[in-house]
């Protein structure tokens, strides 16, 4: 094994819950980034992969464990580790050249030297002619080129990419990714290792020498998959297809935590997170599954291609379907249950009724809200009550998300109503025949 550059040893990170107790975002993460490799981090939302990236960048401090860079403890951002951001993080008031020179300027390098180095990188990354442009004049792809040039000009040993291609359209993202790979393989950049956080499984498989799959709540490394395919890889090739399939399987298999997609059936509890699955997506996928060519059973990568959802989105939606008892997973395939098939052919009113029933049965948060409304004389309760409850087990952001999902689902299932202005959840009015 070649020389390690960055090592994480039993790293943990916590946040404070509403009751003041610590909730783990990351727990016991061991990871070593070696010279000469590209590693991809995959995981469902909330699995702490972004947190881990930021710990490696020195942007946040780990609460437990050790972070070593070249064998020395890392207390903050290091000169040898640079990062490319998801939304580019360019300074809009600086020209392309000034943006690229930012890090050099911060080091106090003389202007001529700066310009010389910047020019070289700008040419390398295909930005020549745009030196004087402001970021707002550029398209997304060109902006991310600036972001990459800004990192590369610092000649970093380690390049961290935080979903660097996900804000770009598919075509642009792929093209940029290939270019980076070419630069990396031809040795035109002095970078010794690249760490990519992604929610695109294909991207990870195409780029990485090693894929790390994260489990959530708390985030930790669930599986590691070495990829020994030669570059350049073809996305259509059998080997790549099989690997993608395998990653899907790994991501959904294993001892699932509550609230996340998995093959084993896990009962959801009141304070768990809910999948960010919109009604329209769920119904769309149900219908898709019921029809040609799937007939109730689909291979996940195929389904991803068909729906054009990102992998993260798709997994969330599937998770929603599984929780509600409309579908289940085996061997990386998704299958419709009888109820799911029935749902796909039902009329709108029947669907809503069915949806409501399943909610009451399988989603404790929704059931709890309904119970609360029935108990209460006035029939309405402020949402804050539930938010506070959720904050005991979830971060403020996650709690908000979970409640939003519960409200959207509950409204669709005709279980309760919600007033956005007042933030009050109300008992659903009985349908009257003559009501328009």
């Amino acid at each position, binding site marked *: 094994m070649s020389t390690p550059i960055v090592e994480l040893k039993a790293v943990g990170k916590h946040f404070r819950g509403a009751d003041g107790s610590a909730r783990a975002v990351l727990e016991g993460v061991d990871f070593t980034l070696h010279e000469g490799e590209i590693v991809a981090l995959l995981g469902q939302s909330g699995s702490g992969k972004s947190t881990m990236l*930021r710990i490696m960048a020195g942007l946040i401090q780990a609460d437990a464990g050790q972070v070593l860079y070249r064998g020395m403890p890392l207390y903050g951002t290091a000169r040898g580790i640079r990062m490319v951001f998801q939304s580019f993080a360019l300074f809009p008031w600086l020209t392309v050249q000034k943006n690229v020179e930012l890090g050099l300027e911060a080091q106090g390098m003389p202007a001529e030297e700066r310009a010389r180095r910047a020019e070289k990188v700008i040419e390398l990354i295909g930005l020549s002619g745009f030196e004087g442009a402001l*970021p707002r004049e550029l398209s997304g792809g060109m902006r991310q080129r600036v972001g990459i040039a800004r990192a590369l000009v610092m000649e970093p040993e380690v390049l961290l990419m935080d979903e660097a291609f996900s804000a770009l359209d598919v075509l642009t993202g792929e093209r940029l990714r290939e270019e980076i790979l070419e630069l990396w393989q031809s040795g035109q950049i002095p970078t010794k290792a690249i760490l990519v956080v992604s929610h695109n499984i294909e991207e990870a498989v195409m780029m990485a020498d090693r894929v790390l799959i994260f489990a959530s709540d708390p985030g930790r490394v669930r599986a590691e998959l070495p990829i020994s395919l030669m570059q350049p890889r073809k996305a259509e090739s059998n080997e790549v297809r099989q690997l993608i399939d395998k990653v899907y399987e790994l991501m959904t298999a294993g001892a699932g935590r509550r609230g996340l997609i998995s093959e084993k059936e896990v009962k959801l509890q009141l304070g768990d997170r809910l999948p960010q699955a919109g009604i329209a997506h769920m119904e769309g996928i149900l219908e898709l599954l019921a029809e040609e060519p799937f007939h109730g059973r689909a291979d996940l990568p195929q389904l991803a291609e068909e729906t054009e959802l990102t992998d993260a989105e798709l997994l969330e939606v599937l998770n929603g379907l599984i929780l509600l008892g409309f579908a289940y997973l085996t061997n990386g395939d998704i299958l419709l249950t009888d109820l799911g098939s029935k749902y796909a052919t039902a009329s709108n009113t029947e669907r809503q009724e069915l949806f409501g029933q399943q909610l009451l049965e399988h989603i404790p948060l929704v059931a709890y809200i309904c119970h609360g409304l029935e108990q209460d004389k006035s029939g309405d309760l402020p949402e804050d009550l539930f938010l506070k409850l959720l904050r005991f087990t979830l971060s403020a952001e996650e709690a908000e998300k979970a409640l939003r999902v519960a409200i959207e689902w509950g409204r669709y299932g005709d279980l309760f109503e919600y007033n956005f202005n007042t933030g009050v959840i109300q008992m659903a009015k009985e349908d009257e025949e003559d009501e328009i």
Partner: protein
Amino acid sequence: MLAPESVNMNKKRQFFPRQVVEAGGNRWDWALLPIVLAVFVLMAYGSQQMSRPYELGQPLPLSLDPSFLPYYLLRTTLRMFIALGASMVFSCVFAALTTKYRLAEKVLVPLLDILQSIPILGFLSITVTAFIAMFPGNLLGVECAAIFAIFTSQAWNMAFSAYQGFRTVPAELSEAAMVYQLSGWQRFWRLELPFAMPGLLWNMMMSMSGGWFFVVASEAISVSGQDIKLPGIGSYIAMAIAQSDMHAIGWAIAAMFVAVLMYDQLFFRPLLAWADRFRFEETGSDTAQQSWLLTWLRRTERTQAIVEWFGDMLGRSIALFRLSHDGTSIRARRDQPSLVPQRVWDAVIAAVVFYALWSLGHFISTEVGWSEVGHVFLMGIYTLARVILLLALAALIWVPVGVWIGMNPRWASRTQAVAQFLAAFPTNLVFPVAVVVIVRFNLNPDIWLSPLMILGTQWYLLFNVIAGASTIPTELRHAAQNFGLSGWLKWRRYLLPAIFPSFVTGAITATGGSWNASIVAEYVSWGPTTLKAHGIGSYIQEMTTAGDFPRIALGIGVMCIFVMGFNHFVWRRLYTLAESRLHF
């Protein structure tokens, strides 16, 4: 950079003196030269006049002859700019401190919130003696007091906007600054200040109008029985009012008109156009400000050279104040955050607050009496009623007008500029006219003085509504047409909700200005006649004239409570509503 032929040319030229060879410049340079020279001469003359021997009690020559007006204008302008510069520095320091140190933030931000609602007169009467003592035997002391007074009318909202800007720097940009190891100094110049710049400039413009509004109060100072009238347009107006000289007022209005126009064209327009690059939305927008002067300046080589020199100096300082170590150094190691200093600091603040409350109670019971407090609160309610009523009236008039203008793009941009200009114009200049009319027709000052409060601030309402209406998405407009919305339904379901956020922004500014204006508007003099409306503004003004410090303090304190309460209970809520719900 140098092309081969220019290298050749340099060779040929090497026998000539440098000044001849390198005398660059283009025709734009030559055209600008007289303007630059004139500005320099005027500035030198004006500042020389500011520092002259002066003893308290010595009368300063002042004439109502209109030929003196340009000179007075120059003096006032100089003061304004010095105060503006000071406000700018203050804002930056304030924002840097409060965003960097949690302890400072805890004290300074609420303090500023209070200072902001204290009317300018309050500062003047307290500080002027100290300033005079600082420069004995020189006019500079009084000048400083006047400048400080203007500063207090400008600094607070600028500081707030800078603070807001610094705090809302997007997380990813902030992380980028950390990853690329920007030091505090570098971060300030490359990230925080540019990000806060548009808001800061916008507030600077409003501050300037605020400064003009109180130009009379800041230049005609009464201290320890002495009446000092500093040469300036404010004193000119004060004297014209004292002598009931309508012609002089007319001249002053004309001079102000020219001054505001010049500020707008020569200072703010170029600045706003320049600051366009700091807008954070990364997509281009067509609402960019245009300025002929900026275009001109950008074409002249000399000014470009000066700008480059400044950029160069900044670059050098940026290179100088860099981080000496990165995250691998032991010096980057952070200690476990300790809660002890926080707790101690909280305890200190609590102690100070309790002491202040206690001494306030003591002060009220010994100096003014509780019944007086009740009286002042009643006065506050009068003024509050006026502010609300007038705002409603102004909204009734300007919302339909603003919507109509905003929907007609041909009119919108032009009218908006005019409205901005009108907002900057100090309307207290037309107060004497109101006095004459009220006296002539024997009207009730309690009612007829009120409109003066909103005279200047209503324009904020207008130009915000115009801005709101002109940004209604075209598709929404078409949808409204398609569904045949008309009459009241059209207003209720479509137009009013669409402009609500910008209306609230405008109304916040307008009410803030109206409270401040009440001090001048509820107590208006013209020669020997003085008209008073019942209200907290006239109370403060009256007590200032009488020199009754405890009662000035009481009046100001109560006004603060009203303004802050109103902001907190009404505007903040409406603003949140607009933010969360009614936007595109």
